[in-house]
């Protein structure tokens, strides 16, 4: 048991936050899409593409920050392409996502092998990992400073994005429009909201964020690209958005939960014989429970509304009779 508790250290929080960052970014994008009424199951492919494009651009441009920028642009383009195909040719978004998840998974490896020889994973000594930044003042606070400071810019950006998205969605008129489109597209359109534009924007932004999350994996965290580098993180991000009920803050916390469990399950192997895979199951079960409770809440609301309606009908009839 002693070994069990020895895992809980500042390093655990650090690696948990690092592992959570790509999830936070992708999940925020997923949540934004869900809020505007489009289901984005292609986070996995957008992430993987960001990872590949990011490291390749960093290599050719000789600057990792430029690599990030190119990855974001590429993700945005892919997201916009989704929106275009969805609105113009009425392509089913789920099928589109399945297709692109496969295309990107295979195409990234194909391109890697063509460009850099027949390799399973690729890296180059000239590529610089995005440097970590210590925040002045905060870094000197004991414990908290160690947890909150010392990450690279992508990590801080994911925190900023969480707050920004919360403010836009819940404190601004534009956010109300987005949510209106998600709740009822036709109704929103009748009051003059451009639903197509909003959904296009949501898909584009989520593509950008997911790609940035992927670039974090290849040039922010490790410094290499391997086949299927995202390794299901896109799907986890979808689960995290659901777990967080598509609320930015909730999504952030849910992603953090997923990230810390992953970090925990990696560390726990060294000190106890608890199986890591079973620990990673926990957040997935939690998501399932959240999904069920959301559905149940909806169901209860529906039954209540029906009961209410019936009671009113009865009362009206009695009034008429009287």
């Amino acid at each position: 048991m002693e070994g069990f508790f020895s895992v809980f250290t500042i390093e655990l929080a650090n690696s948990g936050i690092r592992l959570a960052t790509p999830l936070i970014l992708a999940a925020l994008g997923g949540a934004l899409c869900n809020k505007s009424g489009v289901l984005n199951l292609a986070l996995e492919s957008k992430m993987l593409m960001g990872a590949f494009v990011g490291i390749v651009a960093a290599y050719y441009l000789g600057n990792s920050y430029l690599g990030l920028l190119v990855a974001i642009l590429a993700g945005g383009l892919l997201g916009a392409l989704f929106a275009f195909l969805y609105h113009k040719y009425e392509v089913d978004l789920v099928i589109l996502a399945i297709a692109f998840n496969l295309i990107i998974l295979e195409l990234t490896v194909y391109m890697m092998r063509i460009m850099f020889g027949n390799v399973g994973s690729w890296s180059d000594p000239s590529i610089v990992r995005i440097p970590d930044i210590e925040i002045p003042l905060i870094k000197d606070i004991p414990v908290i400073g160690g947890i909150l400071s010392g990450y690279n810019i992508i990590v801080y950006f994911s925190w900023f994005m969480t707050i920004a998205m919360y403010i836009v969605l819940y404190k601004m008129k534009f956010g109300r429009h987005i949510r209106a489109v998600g709740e009822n597209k036709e109704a929103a359109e009748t009051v003059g909201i451009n639903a197509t534009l909003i959904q296009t924007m949501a898909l584009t932004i989520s593509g950008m964020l997911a790609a940035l999350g992927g670039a974090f994996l290849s040039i922010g965290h490790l410094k290499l690209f391997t086949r299927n580098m995202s390794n299901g993180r896109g799907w986890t991000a979808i689960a995290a958005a659901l777990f967080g009920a598509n609320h930015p803050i909730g999504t952030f916390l849910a992603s953090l939960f997923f990230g810390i469990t992953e970090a925990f399950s990696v560390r726990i192997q060294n000190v106890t014989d608890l199986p890591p895979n079973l620990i990673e199951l926990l957040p997935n079960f939690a998501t399932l429970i959240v999904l069920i409770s959301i559905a149940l809440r909806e169901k209860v609301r529906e039954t209540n509304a029906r009961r209410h309606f019936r009671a009113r009908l009865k009362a009206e009839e009695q009034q008429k009779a009287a």
Partner: protein
Amino acid sequence: MENKKLKKILDAFLVPVLAILSGLVLMAVLIAITGKPVLESYGILFSKAFGCEKIGNCAIITTLERATPIILTGLAAVVAFRSGMFCIGQEGQYLMAAVVAGYLGYAIHLPNGVHQIVILLACMAAGAAYGYIPGFLKVKLGVNELLATIILNTVATLFIEYMVQFPMRGDKSTTAHSPTIDATAQLPTFLPGAKWGVGFIIAVLAVIVIFIYLWKTKAGYEQRMAGQSKFFALYGGVSSDKAALRAMLISGALAGLAGAIEVMGVHRRIMTGFSTGLGFDGLTAAILGQTHPFGVFIVSILFAGLKLGAQLGLQLKLGIPRELGGTIIGFIILFIAARKFYENNIDRVSSWLKKPKKLKAKREEN
């Protein structure tokens, strides 16, 4: 009447064929950027996928073996889609059944013939049970089946990794795997050296049974009706909930069968990295095969062939990465999904073709 039927068939085939052709054209582009000869690549791809150099070393045999699990998971997707359940849980059901097959293969000892049947039935039950979960959640509680199955897939992937690494681990080798299953648990093969065997026959039978079920039985009719319009089905006295639940059970059993055959006929054990996305391959086969059992059958063999040809032909002979096969399949799905694009253009072309005739008729009238 005859004409109408012909048109229906043409409609069903035209878009997939155009999509596949577009995919092959795209392949030429992707090969061209490597600087390898394009036409020669096509020849090698197809001979390594469907050719037969000598008996016992037939590429088509391996293609059929690889197609078997895709056919079954594809059928699973067809049954679910046709009942209006947009469920992508085939991967999870397939993995759960694989665990059961891997375990029963060495844990119990039964005579040859009985052992296999027991495992097959147990795997179907396991798959069906795992398919029943999202079905139940959807019908009784209203949980979105798509989202539920995404999570259940992850759970199954983690579960099989856990089983392989801990309770079922065979020996202390570097890559974890379970013990090899008994000889009595293995499915017989037709040719020595090849793994093509009884599993393929089971898949073919499943195609026929599912076709008969969906189009020739009352239950299948109810299920398709529930899939097309829930309220119309209700009006006709069909409980769409019941039909959906039944569909999820059948769908899960089919995916479970795929897992069983993959373990009993091909790998003979389960190991880390057992999940290679075969469930998703089935989904794509179902989409490309127009959610029809026969379509799934044809498309699965095409898929398996394309992947095998890319691996054995393009990669080994020409040095073109084998990922090309998967890339092209992905693009073909994309082109299928964009059917509206083709339909618009087909309409344009056909109206353009008809125009001269109309003009001619008008002239004659005058």
